[in-house]
């Protein structure tokens, strides 16, 4: 018996000697390949460049499409450089009489701005069946019948692919797609304000869409204000001055799309097979979508037709020391394929990162303590365990803000129509701003992953001042070279001046009750509410959490029925306009359906905003911003919460990785040291098989007495003796 067990266990004991890795989640054929491995949690909703507007989608889309402009990978502050454009656009501004204005002319004089964009010649699209042509030059798959699509599940199922050179008309075609009534581009209204021709086009397209449920040929329609100058040049004429338009030109909304793609995907039977531009993009970028199974994995493969691009040779201070300039001048992309695996849960994602099966990972609250340690000085360093694995930590402050908004339409927090009421309400808001200790909030609930916001503009964006000049003087004072939060005594005094001494209405004696409108959160939500209640209690104010589902919460915000609320904003582009507009009167949520959820209106602020938004960066613009910020700090329509800090971990074999939320086409810059990765994976994932043997022994040990018992019972006679 013992010999038999030993023979059974022998292979188990010998297997580790083979040295193979058993828990590798990737196919054996991928071993040693130049592939980067990453993960995604939520499936992308849209991959159509006129619809996509979220960060998870940007991860894919920015690698496939090449808008005219892009951000420099290494330079900070963020700098725009040409992408598919040959050079930065030429911008000419004209007054009402059609006279050209100098660049320094005030925005009020500008009647129109003309952007002339010259694109790079010789740029080719990725291989795609929509571009396949017969010998006679006609499109190979332009008139497909139902039987031609039998067995077709993806663009890879078409036998032939083709390509062609990028033309200026493709950019114009994409601009027309912004107005397509069936595509619902989120930026249509915004861009149409400056490009009214889009509205004209949309009316025409809507009429045609009502008559024709199939493909609409955009080539038969023109968009006033946008024209093709020649094969490699196109021109956009905007109403007035809108310098931020350059930032929009770095987004896929303005990336080129060949008209052939719309024609190809518009054929009957295509959408039923999920063959749409929303599912299978077609671009000129360094990568193309080779596999699209958003339930399991998505694969970006190197675009064989990519023009090649040189790795940057300049960066910011410290980049050279960090090795970020080592690949200067080398042709990108470096990685052949990027495999994204869907991980719905954080635990397997984290464990696979530690096993070396993902090249990089974020740091969630669950694994924060395992990944990071805080020094006594409050600095963040990697834990010993991470350091032993050669993992590196990258941090950066995101161009985002999370704030607590006060709805100024509320009588208590807004003060109503009278000047006296408004002054009292302002003091109340200031008192709460002081009382809610955001430093403590960040420390407790974010593990320190945030920077206290002094105003809406995140660090790193023009207009955000640092040091003493950058503090919010209502909430902080500068002491010993650092900002110190004002005492609760100051808050109590302001509260008394607001008419609520010790948190009670001075006239009626009723306690002041303030409500936080929110959606029910997950774990930690109760703790956050308790913490907030404690902060308000310190002032003697009663605090009530009014939790509703997401839809009702949005309704409350839209209708102005919320009192206090947590909101956030992720900057679209690194310009103060994109943050300060959140408090612009013309954006008031209730009146204008805009983004100003606090419904804050201040005529001086609004006037300065209109002036500031089209000014070039410089001391003059800074002065205007300083005044606007001062107004906001005094009026306190928000508690300026925090700017989140992004923590990212990467293995030692990942090279050229630099954080920076604005730069989204990052994959082409990154490189993998394959030898190092393979060695680490093999070392970290040696299978341990002795527990299987032990398990077998335990099973046998457990069954043996049962077997003995069975045999004894079967052999027993009715009188109790043995048979």
């Amino acid at each position, binding site marked *: 018996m013992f010999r038999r067990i030993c023979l059974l266990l022998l292979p188990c004991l010998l297997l580790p000697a083979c040295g193979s*890795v*058993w*828990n*590798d*989640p*990737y*196919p054996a054929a991928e071993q040693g390949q130049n592939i980067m491995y990453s993960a995604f949690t939520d*499936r992308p*909703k*849209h991959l159509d460049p006129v619809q996509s*507007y*979220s960060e998870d989608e940007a991860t894919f889309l920015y690698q496939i499409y090449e808008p005219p402009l892009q951000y420099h990978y290494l330079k900070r502050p963020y700098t725009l450089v040409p992408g598919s454009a040959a050079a930065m656009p030429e911008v000419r501004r004209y007054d009402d009489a059609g006279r050209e204005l100098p660049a320094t002319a005030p925005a009020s004089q500008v009647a129109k701005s003309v952007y002339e964009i010259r694109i790079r010649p010789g740029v080719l699209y990725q291989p795609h069946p929509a571009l396949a042509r017969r010998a006679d030059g006609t499109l190979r798959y332009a008139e497909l019948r139902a039987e031609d699509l039998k067995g077709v599940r993806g663009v890879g199922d078409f036998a032939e692919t083709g390509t062609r050179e990028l033309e200026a008309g493709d950019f114009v075609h994409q601009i027309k797609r912004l107005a397509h*009534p*069936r595509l*619902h581009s*989120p*930026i*249509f*209204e*915004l861009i149409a304000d400056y490009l009214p021709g889009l509205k004209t086009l949309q009316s025409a397209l809507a009429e045609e869409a009502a008559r024709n449920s199939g493909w609409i040929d955009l080539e038969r329609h023109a968009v006033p204000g946008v024209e093709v100058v020649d094969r490699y040049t196109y021109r956009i004429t905007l109403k007035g001055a809108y310098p931020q338009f350059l930032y929009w030109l770095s987004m896929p909304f303005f990336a080129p799309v060949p008209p052939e793609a719309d024609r190809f995907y518009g054929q009957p039977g295509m*959408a*039923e*097979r*999920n063959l*749409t531009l*929303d*599912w299978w993009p077609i671009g000129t970028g360094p990568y193309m979508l080779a596999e699209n*199974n958003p*339930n*399991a994995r998505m694969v970006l493969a190197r675009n064989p037709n990519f023009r090649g691009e040189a790795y940057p040779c300049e960066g910011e201070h410290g980049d050279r020391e960090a090795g970020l300039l080592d690949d200067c001048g080398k042709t990108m992309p470096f990685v052949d394929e990027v495999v994204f*695996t*869907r*991980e*719905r*849960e954080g*635990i*397997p994602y984290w*464990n*696979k990162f*530690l*096993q070396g099966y993902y090249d990089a990972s974020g740091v969630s609250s669950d694994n924060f303590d395992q990944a990071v340690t805080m020094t006594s000085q409050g600095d963040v360093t990697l834990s010993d365990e991470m350091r032993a694995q050669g993992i590196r930590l990258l941090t950066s402050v995101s161009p985002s803000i999370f704030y607590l908004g006060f709805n100024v339409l509320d009588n208590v927090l807004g003060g109503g129509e009278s000047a006296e009421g408004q002054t009292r309400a302002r003091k109340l808001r200031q008192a709460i701003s002081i009382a809610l200790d955001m430093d403590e909030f960040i420390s407790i609930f974010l593990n320190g992953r945030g920077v206290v916001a002094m105003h809406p503009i995140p660090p790193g964006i023009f207009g955000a001042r640092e040091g003493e000049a950058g503090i919010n003087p209502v909430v902080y004072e500068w002491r010993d070279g650092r900002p110190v939060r004002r005492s609760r005594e100051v808050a109590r005094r302001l509260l008394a001046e607001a008419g609520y001494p010790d948190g009670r209405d001075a006239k009626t004696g009723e306690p002041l009750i303030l409500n936080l409108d929110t959606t029910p959160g997950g774990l930690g939500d109760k703790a956050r509410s308790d913490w907030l209640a404690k902060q308000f209690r310190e002032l003697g104010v009663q605090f009530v959490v009014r939790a509703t*589902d997401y*839809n009702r919460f*949005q309704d409350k915000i839209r209708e102005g029925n919320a009192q206090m609320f947590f909101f956030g904003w992720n900057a679209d582009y690194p310009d103060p306009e994109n943050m300060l507009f959140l408090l612009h009167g013309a954006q008031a949520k209730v009146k204008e*359906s805009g*983004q100003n959820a606090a419904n804050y209106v201040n005529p001086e602020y609004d006037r300065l905003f209109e002036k500031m938004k089209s000014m070039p960066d410089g001391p003059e613009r800074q002065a205007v911003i300083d005044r606007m910020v001062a107004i906001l700090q005094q009026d306190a329509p928000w508690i300026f919460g925090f700017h989140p800090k992004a923590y990212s971990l990467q293995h030692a074999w990942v090279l050229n990785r630099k954080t920076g939320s604005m730069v989204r086409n990052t994959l082409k810059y990154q490189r993998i040291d394959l030898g190092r990765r393979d060695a680490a994976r093999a070392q970290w*994932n*040696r*299978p*341990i*098989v002795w*527990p*299987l043997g032990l398990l077998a022994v335990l099973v046998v040990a457990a069954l043996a*007495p*049962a077997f003995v*018992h*069975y045999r004894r*019972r*079967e052999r027993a006679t009715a009188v109790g003796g043995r048979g």
Partner: protein
Amino acid sequence: MFAYIVRRLLYAVPILIGVNLVTFGLFFVVNSPDDMARMQLGVKRVTPEAIERWKAERGYDRPLFFNAKAAGSGQVTDTIFFQKSLRMFAFDFGRADDGRDIAQEMRDRMGPSLALALPTFVMGLFASISFALILVFFRASYLDFWGVVLCVAMMSISSLFYIIGGQWLVSKLWALVPISGYAPGLDAWRFLVLPVAISVIAGVGSNARWYRTIFLEEVSRDYVRTARAKGLSERVVLFRHVLKNAMIPILTGVVVVIPLLFMGSLLVESFFGIPGLGSYTIDAINAQDFAVVRAMVFIGSVLYIVGLILTDISYTLVDPRVRLE
């Protein structure tokens, strides 16, 4: 039997209409078409005009149940409920709100769900019944006692603990199989072995206890005493006679879930990265995608009804006394 099945299928029609009505009512109590549009279009920079356009394009600009502005039968037919429900009874589920074909999505996800659910079901059933029969065989002994204690302990532990513990122990510490992921074809076994094992272990405690109760009731019957009296071994008594006669209660609980295996498992699929149907409904609820929610609830109801009919049919197979009339 044929007439019985036809009658049961006809009964299913009003049940399905009722389920559809309840799903529709519950969904639109919580979500309005405006909310659905906002969810799809995003909260950033969405305008009221864009919301109206989205609703009109997808037919959500009609009243829910009754269209007072329409004439004649249009008052009922020109409504969201009618327009969205009718085609479903022909199993035409249409598109999800993100434009993707629902039937295609279901077909894609069904395979991985079945690859996980089928072995889990078969092995779980085998393990539970075997374990229960062993406990019954050793009834009233210390083995039975500790076996029941083990069952109670196993059923008291959260399935999440089995999953996380199993992943940590088997995949992370011992590095024997991948922690999560999936591969089509034969390579799938590497990814399925751990979730199947964990699902079987997590379910064996409660199932074995349930089957043990059934078998214990059965072994006290007269025919068992007769079988023993004529000298049959205990193994033959249990596996040939008791198991066969305990089939009716077992089938009641088992056959009905067979069609539902297609629907997948939310928790296990999520943690093990198996791209099945388990999370499709939850994802749709979170995305406020009514088209997917109603399709999944409808399919679930149909499969449940099919399961109940199959259960009735299975009774006739194991007990000749049962006749379906």
